[in-house]
């Protein structure tokens, strides 16, 4: 069956723009509230960091860390191209810019730069469907993405997009040199409020030792009204 699918689709692949438009359509919401758990498998131990994120559109987000005790109360605010973090221990709000953006987020395989990405990939990348494939029995389009905006963390990416649900199931992220930097495996895809949502993501920074970082979605709400004050610098110190 899969072989027939591959052969059939190799002769008639959809356009990359169309695939990415449908991916963004599935994932985009005016607002979303996500409670998540990040399980970081380091070289020496495994840590779990819990957080809640309030997101408005594609540009603004506010994250509060809930656990462990050491990280509790740390907040992050992203407004357009700016990212601030608030540390309750020092009562300081710091703008994360320049080389700090390359740093690991809470010691995970994600960087602050990853947080700054526009979640709508069609805004930043030109897409081409290069092949058909299958992952865990799901039929996928293999989409090659090439940056059309200067200064992105990843110059090219390759995404395996579920051909029916339009959810990426696997991604490879490359540097300008063509070197593979990170891989992401997305699984446990569930339907929430009419959208297909991967509830488990495994990030691996291939330049780092360790078993990667699991990102588990505990709950997710879409298009819920957010309090206006939340997405402001004043909210960081509250």
């Amino acid at each position, binding site marked *: 069956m899969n072989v027939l699918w591959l052969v059939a689709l190799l002769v008639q692949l959809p356009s990359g723009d169309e695939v990415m438009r449908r991916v963004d359509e599935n994932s985009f919401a005016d607002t979303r509230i996500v409670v998540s758990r990040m399980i970081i498998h380091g*070289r020496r131990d495994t840590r779990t960091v819990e957080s809640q994120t309030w997101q408005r559109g594609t540009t603004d987000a506010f994250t509060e860390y809930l656990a462990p005790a050491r990280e509790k109360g740390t907040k992050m605010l992203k407004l357009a191209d700016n990212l601030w973090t608030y540390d309750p221990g020092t009562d300081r709000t710091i703008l994360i810019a320049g080389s700090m953006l390359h740093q690991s987020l809470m010691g995970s395989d994600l960087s602050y730069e990853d947080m700054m990405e526009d979640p709508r990939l069609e805004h930043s990348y030109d897409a081409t469907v290069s092949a058909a494939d299958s992952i865990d029995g799901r039929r996928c389009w293999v989409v090659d993405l090439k940056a059309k905006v200067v200064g992105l963390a990843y110059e090219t990416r390759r995404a395996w997009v579920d051909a029916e649900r339009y959810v990426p199931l696997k991604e490879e992220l490359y540097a300008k040199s063509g070197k593979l930097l990170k891989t992401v495996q997305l699984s446990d895809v569930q339907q929430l409020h009419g959208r297909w949502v991967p509830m488990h993501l495994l990030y691996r920074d291939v330049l780092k030792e360790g078993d990667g970082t699991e990102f588990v979605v505990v709950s997710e709400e879409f298009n819920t009204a957010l309090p206006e004050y939340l997405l402001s610098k004043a909210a960081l110190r509250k």
Partner: protein
Amino acid sequence: MIRFLLKGLLRDRSRSLLPVLVVMAGVTLTVILYAWLEGVESSVEQSTAHFSDGYMRVTTRAYAAEANPAANDLALLGVDTLLSGLRHDYPDVRWTPRITFGGLLDIPDAHGETRVQAPVAGLGVDLFTPGSVERTILPLGAALIRGRAPARRGEAVMSEELARRLGIAPGQVATVIGATMDGSMTFANFTIVGTVRFGVAPMDHGAIIADLADVQSALHMENSAGAILGFFPDDLYHENRADTIAARFNAARAEPGQFGPMMQTLRQASGLSGLMDYIAAFLDTLIAFFVFAMSIVLWNAGLMGSLRRYGEIGVRIAFGEDTGHVYRSMLVEAFAVGLVGSLLGTAIGLSAAYALQVHGFDMRPFLKNSSMVITDVLRARVTPGGAVIGFIPGLLATLLGAAISGVGIYRRQTSQLFKELEA
């Protein structure tokens, strides 16, 4: 006989003064260069030990394999137990834990917003434990330019150069943004109570020094440290002792895995072995060169002397003096010349070296952008070796010169002597 030879030497200045001056000049240069290289080697060792690796360093195997000294995700755990074990097993060595870290120094304005930021290299050192070795290894009081040394938790000193660049005065609060042992971003406030200058370029470009406990707390490294450093009580590097201690420790602590502790000597940890070997090889080459060059000069002087003393030697042989005796007497003369030249050269060389030890040579113009942990005023070092080293080329060259030029004595034919003398 020796008195007779010495009288001859003193009365004939061309046999004594010129060779003595040549030997003296060569020995002076040898002694100065030897003391200078000893000083440079010692400065490199001491600076590297004080600011970076100690004379011995205990880290995890993974940390030792890492080029980055701020790789605190690979730090030692259970430092208290390890430290007390080291102090018990090797009481002749002074052990101290250290944390090296990197990050950004963020200076807030009146509203708590970032006014200015700069990259900073940090050291967490044991400042407050009574009897801490750090008080002599990193004497903050002596390095102070403004303010005072930290007296309580939450205080730090930073390099004067960085403080001026950022416009920080003692008393201001600065936030260090770094990475925890887990790799998370972390923030720690320090009151900058003083500024320091160590005369070591990488430290003076941009460093902050705080108490170990503060740094442990900021980087989530309680009871952890990047390294435990060992210092000999005389603060000199004794390579054989360090090798023995490291081998003993490593044999006793052969725990598997990359996070087990291992000990390295300064040479191994710092990558200084190449430089040290280079200095030793340079010194050997230098001495060999002086022996060779002076031997040629003295051989020449000996040849000229033999020509001038052709008649004298002929008469001595004609009177029945054994050629071997004549030859040996010339060697004794050469020995006396070498000895006097070496004594004078060593005295002058050591005096000059001592002046270089006291005043030093300011290398700052050449070390502006250096990342080498080396003091920027290099000094010579007068050691017992310096008092001996000059005698090797001084005596060897004169003896060699006399031995080669004196070979002609054996070629004189007794039957021809009177003819030669008549002529």
